């Protein structure tokens, strides 16, 4: 798939960057002329993926998170969130609704939300090496634009 534009952001796993990451994604996605609902879907999905990396990938240390945003020629936004943290031993289990290894402020619904708010979700992970989450969100082409 041809990429028409892209941006890469790198930041440490501080929770203050959750808001930054989703807002940056929303700004970049503006080039696709999304509806408010489409922008909110992107913000929500990015927030979940970045929060997962902050909470789970680097539980005791600050680590590197990379957020890649790509605008594809089919008018879709590809969102890639990559970390080099602890990894997920059982991805299927992690994707199960309500499953969490986090503390009380986690609901175990992160992957469920990512799935609901995007058109596709892929999770690649190896324990000790890190996790890459790839999501694609199609943005409807609107008449007269």
């Amino acid at each position: 798939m041809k990429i028409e534009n892209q941006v890469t952001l790198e930041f440490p796993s501080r929770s203050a960057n959750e808001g930054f990451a989703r807002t940056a994604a929303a700004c970049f996605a503006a080039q696709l002329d999304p509806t408010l609902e489409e922008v909110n879907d992107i913000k929500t999905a990015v927030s979940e993926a970045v929060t997962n990396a902050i909470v789970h990938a680097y539980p005791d240390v600050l680590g590197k998170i990379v957020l890649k945003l790509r605008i594809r020629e089919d008018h879709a936004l590809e969102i890639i969130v990559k970390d080099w943290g602890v990894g997920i031993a059982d991805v299927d289990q992690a994707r199960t609704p309500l499953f969490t290894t986090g503390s009380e402020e986690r609901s175990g619904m992160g992957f469920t939300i990512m799935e609901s708010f995007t058109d596709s979700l892929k999770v690649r992970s190896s324990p000790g090496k890190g996790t890459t989450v790839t999501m694609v969100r199609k943005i409807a082409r609107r008449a007269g634009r």
Partner: protein
Amino acid sequence: MPVTCREDNRCLTALVSGELDHHGARAVMNELDQRIDQAQPRELTLDLSGLTFTDSSGIAVLLRAHRRMTQVRGAMRVVSTPAQAGKVFRAAGLERIIRFE
């Protein structure tokens, strides 16, 4: 992530505003816990009219408040849920557990 509370005849109303994510969830939970412990309300109304964004952290906050209210034998309802938050809560099936008005 401010929470503004008012209490009237053991009915507690909490107005949650701003963006609710993992970064701010703990503070909101602590504030609600404290208010519920103090007031022992018959009913808690969570007013989300000022909530500009939430992710699954909001689900955890609502479930915790609901659990606390069950412990003090009170009721809980959630009012004025914005569209974005409503979509997150519906994706989690929260309406089967929590009363939205």
